[in-house]
């Protein structure tokens, strides 16, 4: 069994033992010691109080020195390193939860509950959150250390390079936010159906392992909602390209405002005439002509982008399993935490203080007896 200290600098307080000793010496000097050539003609004055006082003085000094010493030791925070306690360190876990998203945040509270010490870290970059977690774990008292990465574990949400930051002795575990991958979003699509320009509300349902798309009923919209103008020589190609693009369908958000695609070289007069007040999107004349439809589709998609949603392709259980590892042994040099050993010392200090107060009171009674006798013999 050994003793470690949480604040060893406080042991310097042991030097304060000199204080009661100095006081004792000063008081002794005050009580007078007189060097005398010979005691052969002297007889001890029968004042039992003097003898008692000497004994009391020595005991009082010991008591005061013990109070100072115990207080200094208590402030230094002794931690008894018994075999049971050392093995107990491995049985408790300091847990850092790295939340990848809101789902991870809600999981964190549950994960942290059972831990000896826990904290949740969330940063825009998962690598930063991991660094914070590692730093926090290094500051924890001796215990098993573990990082739990919680949230929607989509592919790309965490990379092997991020995990390489984690020291070897720190366990890694993943907690997937159950059901959080299910999501449904509906966005409108502009398309041509049977030669007519329509609006279709397209429902997209994201599952963990699949994405299902269901189109709602089509509703006709203004035929000139989207138009295209070009040089006279390119007009036929341009209109064909627009028709082809709309046949494929494009995500569209603003059905109240007309949009006109203008190929370079188009007559300015025809632009104004065809679509006054419309949103004008200029683009070069596609080349070769066979790429015209794709170019027009890309221009339309850029004008009204689809909602930024990804298909939730999840990290595979095998991948997560290969990244996981159990917590290692507690660090030898982990900062110690008060394990409550000092409370016994404080108890002893309080007890000694009580004894000291009692002895002082008792001594003052003796002193008054001594003074009385001095007056009498004088």
């Amino acid at each position, binding site marked *: 069994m050994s003793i470690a200290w949480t604040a060893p600098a406080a042991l310097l307080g042991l030097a304060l033992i000199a204080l009661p000793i100095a006081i004792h010496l000063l008081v002794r000097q005050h009580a007078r010691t007189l060097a005398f050539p*010979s005691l052969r003609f002297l007889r001890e004055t029968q004042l039992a109080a003097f003898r008692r006082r000497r004994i009391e003085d020595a005991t009082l000094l010991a008591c005061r020195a013990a109070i100072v010493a115990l207080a200094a030791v208590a402030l230094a925070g002794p931690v008894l390193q018994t075999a049971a306690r050392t093995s107990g360190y491995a049985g408790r876990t300091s847990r850092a939860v790295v939340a990848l998203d809101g789902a991870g945040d809600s999981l964190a509270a549950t994960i942290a509950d059972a831990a000896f010490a826990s904290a949740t870290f969330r940063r825009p970059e998962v690598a930063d959150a991991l660094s914070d977690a590692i730093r926090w774990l290094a500051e924890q008292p001796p215990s098993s250390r573990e990082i739990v990465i919680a949230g929607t574990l989509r592919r790309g949400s965490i990379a092997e390079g991020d995990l390489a930051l984690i020291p070897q002795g720190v366990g890694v575990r993943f907690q997937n936010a159950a059901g959080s991958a299910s999501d449904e979003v509906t966005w409108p699509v502009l398309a041509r159906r049977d030669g007519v320009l329509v609006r279709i509300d397209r429902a997209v349902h994201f599952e963990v392992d699949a994405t299902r798309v269901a189109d709602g009923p089509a509703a006709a919209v203004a035929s000139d909602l989207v138009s295209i103008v070009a040089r006279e020589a390119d007009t036929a190609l341009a209109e064909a390209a627009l028709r082809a693009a709309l046949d494929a369908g494009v995500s569209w958000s603003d059905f109240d405002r007309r949009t006109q695609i203008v190929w370079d070289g188009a007559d300015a007069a025809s632009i104004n005439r065809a679509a006054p007040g419309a949103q004008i999107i200029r683009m070069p004349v596609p080349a070769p002509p066979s790429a015209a439809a794709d170019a027009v589709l890309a221009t339309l998609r850029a004008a009204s982008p689809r909602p930024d949603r990804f298909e939730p392709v999840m990290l595979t259980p095998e991948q997560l399993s290969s990244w996981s590892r159990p917590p290692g042994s507690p660090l030898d040099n982990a900062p110690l935490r008060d394990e409550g050993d000092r409370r016994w010392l404080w108890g002893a200090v309080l007890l000694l203080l009580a004894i000291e107060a009692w002895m002082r009171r008792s001594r003052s009674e003796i002193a008054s007896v001594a003074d009385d006798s001095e007056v009498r013999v004088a």
Partner: protein
Amino acid sequence: MSRSHVVTSSELQSLRDLELMTKATVEGLRQGLHRSPFHGYSAEFAQYRPYRPGDDLKYVDWKAFARTDRIYTRQFRETTNLSALFVTDVSKSMDFRGKFELARTVTAILGTLVLDQGDAAGVLAVDERAHYVPPRSGHHHLRVFLAEVAALQPRSHASIGEALRRAAAIVKRRGLVLVISDLYEDKAALTEIKRIKQMGHDVIVIHTLAREELTLDVGGAAEFVDLESGRTLMVEPSAARESYVAAVRSWLTTVEQQLRREGIDYLRLMTGDPLEPALRRFLVGRRGRT
């Protein structure tokens, strides 16, 4: 026996102080005494021999002539000067309220007086080792004598009894032995003093005491620590004073009586008392007796 040849600066200062003080006191004493209080054995009778013409008539023993009808001349051994050995107590009990300084001063004063009248003076003190300056005369020796006296310090393991025992062994020629001590080792010391006296030496005992040793006027209750043994005793002086003073007085009387009975001169000196008058009184009284 050896003596220290190393004189520290503090000892030198102490020597200077001692010289100054001694000089002043000795001057005063010399003026008051006129005639030396110490005597050597100047002419000791050795034998008769028949008178031969030319012999000094003052050495003719006329009484013998009357008895025997023959003229004899008295012959004497060679003249000797006084040889004085100061045996000074350097025990720890002397280190009390100026008592040792008194002893040292008295040694220096009387030693200077002896040397000034052309006689020999030496000093002996014994602690862990012996500090001995053999009795010699001469002005140069005064400095040596005073240096040794100035260097003396009260120490543990010092014994006046042992010093006297050694003095008895050292001093072969009849002379004067001056003992300066508080005489707390009275049994051993008195035995040796008497032995020295019986050896034919002239002995003077100067009993040095601090005034507080007689009166126990040392304030309130205190833990008394024996300077020599280190033994402690809790004493309330006001309660102990009466019996203490009586015991000390009885002891002093006994010591003085024992010494005087042996024909030994005894002088008690106390710290705080004017030294010169006390010494003058003693020396004048002693001169009157010789």
